[in-house]
């Protein structure tokens, strides 16, 4: 490694330095404290994004496939996800303001933790080596544990953090054990070298065990059944902006490594793992959606719904074809925006601490905030996969991938479950439009309005003219697809 190689990780370096500085600002006392933590964070994110784009242009001429042989790749796939992460975190910063002001928590700690979490996510997106991926994942997880317990005085929040920490630590250990077994058999941790080693192996129990453990660890991170039980409790207990973070940015990062590991590293053993993952996916969709129906707490409902969405995204992994890979990329974007919009609404209804989180709290919203209620309907339809919202485009890719791969039964479960999911999404619509109950209290602030506005525009625009996103997904995933020798697709 020489200094020229620094350009690959320059955005992460800048982000780490920035986040560290933010952590130190309160210590300096008087002068620093007058700065606005929020704006500093936004500037930091903007600089990171700018550097990322600059660096991506600088390494443009380097063969993206060659990058895969290293530990860290600044390829199309990672840039796609990194920009999504930065966008999501920027919106989360907007969403967090009220929460911080209300609890008089130190914004510096909070934002710098978000910065470190983002850094972890960016490493995950770029990791082409299991160690890089693992370290990124741990950085994200450790930051998330603390953030989940940020309501320091609330028992529920502490409980959420404890649960998340203990289960997360166990799952990390399982993941690490899986990685070590794979290393033992394949002699490398680079995904391409693993793939190369695997192509010569017919069958090997240790390797199978390793893949299984690795898969289990990853499934914990995306909250797929049967590794999902932490999700509703953590979402319910964690501060709402952090629940939003866990269900959008953090989840998308886990989707990214899922895609990367299985598409680049483990595709030769597709036949061995696809049925296991198919079962997990089916269970996630069924249990996630059915359990969400009975929830009265919106945060828990969204928790179960996010389990179901993990099941949909797994369709893209199982199919192992070009459509599936594109589907994961497209769906991540679509899912993040629709979900953030809903979380913005939950935050808007939040009066203090945990109030305003029940389905009943949405009652009569259409009367006093008609535009907001309309936006909410669009977000819910998008999560349910109803055109003309972006959610339909995302689901279209995943369902199409499953049909093309011959997982017809799984596709049938998926479409039926997405119909079931409308049942509980409609509960919120019913509350907003069809019930004229108590007057819901809410406080619309400018940052919330901006976030909801962006999410609404993106969700509708990507639903009606999805070409740009699809083209970008095709382009960004092309070299990953080429390496995995995926089933071609006549569409392009």
């Amino acid at each position, binding site marked *: 490694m020489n200094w020229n190689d620094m350009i690959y990780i320059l955005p992460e370096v800048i982000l780490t330095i920035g986040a560290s500085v933010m952590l130190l600002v309160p210590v300096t006392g008087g002068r620093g404290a007058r700065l606005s933590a929020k704006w500093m964070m936004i500037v930091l994110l903007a600089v990171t994004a700018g550097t990322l784009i600059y660096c991506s242009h600088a390494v443009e001429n380097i063969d993206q496939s060659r990058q895969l042989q290293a530990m860290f790749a600044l390829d199309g796939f990672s840039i796609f996800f990194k920009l999504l992460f930065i966008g999501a975190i920027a919106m989360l910063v907007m969403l967090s303001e009220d929460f911080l002001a209300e609890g008089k928590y130190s914004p510096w700690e909070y934002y710098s933790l978000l910065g470190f979490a983002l850094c972890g996510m960016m490493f995950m997106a770029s990791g082409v080596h299991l160690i890089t991926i693992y370290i990124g994942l741990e950085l994200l997880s450790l930051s998330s544990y603390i953030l989940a317990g940020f309501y320091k005085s609330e028992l529920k929040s502490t409980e959420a953090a404890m649960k998340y920490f203990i289960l997360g630590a166990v799952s990390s250990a399982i993941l690490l054990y899986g990685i070590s077994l794979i290393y033992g058999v394949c002699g490398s941790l680079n995904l391409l070298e693993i793939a190369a080693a695997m192509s010569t192996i017919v069958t090997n129990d240790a390797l199978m065990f390793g893949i299984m453990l690795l898969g289990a660890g990853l499934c914990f991170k995306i909250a797929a059944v049967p590794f999902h039980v932490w999700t509703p409790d953590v979402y319910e207990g964690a501060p709402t902006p952090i629940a939003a973070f866990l269900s959008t940015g953090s989840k998308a990062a886990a989707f990214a490594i899922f895609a990367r590991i299985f598409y680049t590293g483990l595709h030769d053993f597709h036949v061995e793992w696809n049925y296991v993952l198919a079962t997990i996916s089916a269970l996630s969709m069924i249990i996630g959606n059915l359990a969400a129906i009975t929830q009265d707490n919106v945060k828990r409902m969204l928790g179960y719904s996010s389990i179901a969405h993990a099941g949909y995204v797994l369709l893209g992994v199982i199919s192992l074809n070009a459509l599936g890979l594109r589907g994961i990329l497209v769906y991540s974007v679509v899912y993040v925006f629709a979900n953030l919009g809903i979380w913005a609404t939950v935050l808007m209804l939040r009066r203090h601490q945990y109030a305003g989180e029940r389905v009943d709290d949405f009652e009569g919203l259409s009367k006093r905030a008609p535009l907001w209620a309309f936006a909410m309907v669009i977000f819910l339809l998008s999560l349910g996969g109803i055109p003309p919202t972006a959610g339909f485009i995302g689901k279209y890719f995943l*369902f199409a991938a499953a*049909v093309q791969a011959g*997982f*017809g039964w799984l596709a049938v479960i998926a*479409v039926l479950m*997405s119909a079931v999911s409308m049942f509980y999404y409609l509960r919120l619509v019913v509350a907003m439009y*069809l019930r004229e109950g108590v007057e819901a209290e809410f406080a619309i602030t400018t940052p919330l309005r901006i976030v909801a506005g962006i999410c609404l525009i993106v969700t509708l625009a990507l639903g009606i003219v999805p070409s740009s996103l*699809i083209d970008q997904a095709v382009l960004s995933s092309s070299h990953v697809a080429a390496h995995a020798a995926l089933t*071609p697709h006549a*569409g392009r």
Partner: protein
Amino acid sequence: MGILNIVTYIPLIGAVLILLFLPKENGKAIRYTATFVAVADFIASLYLWFNFDPKGTGDGMWQFRFIHSWIPSLNVKYDFGIDGISLLLILLTTFMGIIAVVSSFAAIDHRQKEYYILLLLLQTGMIGTFCALDFFLFYVFWEIMLVPMYFIIGIWGGPRKLYAAIKFFLYTLSGSVVMLLSILALYFFNSDGIPFLNIKGLGNAATFSVLQYHKIGHLIPPTLQFWIFLGFFLGFAIKVPMFPFHTWLPDAHVEAPTAGSIILAAVLLKMGTYGFVRFALPILPDGTKQWLPWVVALSIIGIIYGALVSLVQKDMKKLVAYSSVSHLGFVMLGMFALNPMGLKGSVIQMINHGISTGALFLLVGIIYERRHTRMIAEYGGLAKVMPVYATLFLIAALSSMGLPALNGFVGEFTILLGAANRSIVWASFASVGIVLGAAYLLWLYQRVFWGPLDNPANKSLLDVNKRELGLLLSLVVLMVWIGIKPGIFFDIIEEPVNYVVRKVDPTYFAKQPLVYPPATPVAVTAVETSR
């Protein structure tokens, strides 16, 4: 620009204008604007009627084509075009659109702005569905229709509106997502194939073009056709609705406001039958034949079951709702006779059912506005206080039961001929349905309009006002027109129907060169041929 786009999006533009420029307190302005938009849309659709060339064959059958690239990476096209079948259905939609808007003037007294916006949005969705010649586009419009209807039932409905609205939404949605899988299977058969199922694709460029699938449909292996047809069947049969998927219908109809019921009966149910005739039959000839016995059996059960259940209803609206199940059974039976006669009857009956049942729902709505009950037992002797209303109700009922010289007869008779041509057993079962149809409607009429006027609440009922009279008369004119001069309608659907028959059974016309001479007044000729 494309005239079809204009027809499709006039209601959408109207809805946006109402949303942006009219304050919600000004109910009058909203009502009149909505009426103006609906009328404008109807006039635009008349342009289609006068410029449509019924003689177009082959690719010329699809007229007013408008093709534009939409999602190039998936090769999804924005492809609009209509044939005679879609033309009639679009005209029905725009016409019933006016009826729906005007009939809501008195009935909808709260949240008017939202109501008319949703009604207009729904109209855009419906017209778009009939125009789309690209599966992706079709699916988008098909799903868009769900949302406004959900709100119309859910906000302005009766006491059990929440239950009815959710049931309607989920039922239809589950059917349509399964249909989406069938569309995907077609898509991959045409292009890449489905390697895991050992199905080799044709290797064509990926496309969603319906016409392309009309061309390659017969190449699909029978087993695959079986499954694809099942997916389409679930999507469309729920919408029709066929027995045993009909349970959402009575709930939705009873709870929906009058205009919602009118639109639901007149147009939304036709989406299902239209789907069969446009997609399932021409694309999947083998699948159609494999499923034929089941579909026909369910249609016949639907005809008789629907009629029997109508017979015992105590609620007028529910009675009319169940009669729809019976009538749509006829439409399906005629369609699956798979001969030109049956298919023509089926298409004409789609229109007839829209007009007659729309009129019946409107009439039930009118009396409900006055008395706030739909229970048959509450009424009796209404002919004495509401003579005009009674007369119009009689005409609508007679049209619905198929009295000659009214529209219902033309459709039902042609369907029976087509069915009998195929199997006399089918026709015999179906004719039982006609008898029962006469029974439940006449019995309803007898209980409501004749007998002593003994309920004091009914003694001061007002007869129809000018607005209601106008709406009903316009429907009656249509009933009579189709009843005595159906030839022009049959001419329009001649080519599309023969096209479908040729797709399902390429040798049909070779085997039977003389089915009946085209372009003749059908009722008379039909009788002669059957002799």
